[in-house]
């Protein structure tokens, strides 16, 4: 059963610390998305990659967030320095494009709490 995996599942950190979240997309998928979910803003697209190349990171605060795909099996989202307003659930999703119905398969999320 192919699934997107994310680590860690939960992260509590102090303001100012660096946070790194990891995602393993479904094998064979060529598109990876990073979303942030909060009660106030819903699901926000932070960045997405196709064939490991960043296509759009306009949703990310550039001064503190960075996203990379070191290889086809790993995507990372880094926050440095973290702030309390970054507290949210971060989802990674993967998919295959182009496709008539480009389904996104979401991971279980990383719940980040910044104190």
């Amino acid at each position, binding site marked *: 059963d192919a699934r*997107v995996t994310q680590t860690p599942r939960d992260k509590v950190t102090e303001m100012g610390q660096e946070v790194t979240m990891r995602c393993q997309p479904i094998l064979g998928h060529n598109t990876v*998305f990073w979303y942030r979910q909060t009660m106030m803003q*819903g*699901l926000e*697209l932070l960045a*997405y990659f196709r064939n490991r190349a960043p*296509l*759009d990171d306009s949703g990310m605060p550039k001064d503190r967030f960075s996203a990379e795909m070191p290889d086809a099996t790993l995507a990372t989202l880094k926050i440095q320095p973290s702030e309390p307003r970054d507290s949210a659930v971060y*989802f990674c*999703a993967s998919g295959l*494009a*182009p*496709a*008539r*119905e*480009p*389904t*996104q*398969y*979401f*991971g*279980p*999320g990383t719940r980040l709490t910044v104190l």
Partner: protein
Amino acid sequence: QQQVKQSPQSLIVQKGGISIINCAYENTAFDYFPWYQQFPGKGPALLIAIRPDVSEKKEGRFTISFNKSAKQFSLHIMDSQPGDSATYFCASGGYQKVTFGTGTKLQVIP
């Protein structure tokens, strides 16, 4: 950023009733309209999707109705069950990416 407006924010329906969630989009170039279902503590999962070449798509108890001229689409859940209690997100976009609505929290009471 192109908006997708979703309503209502929350919905309570009796078991066996019909749940209806509405969405409106702005960009006429959008050609892919999925609905995702999210249970607490889980990531969203695709429920059903439609392309604008059809006005309706049905899968079991779930139906999408699509009105291209009004730029609106809706999700109908027939014979709603307590197990359908979840948050539902509409989305619109193309093959590159989609924009999600703000979500509707559905509660189906026995």
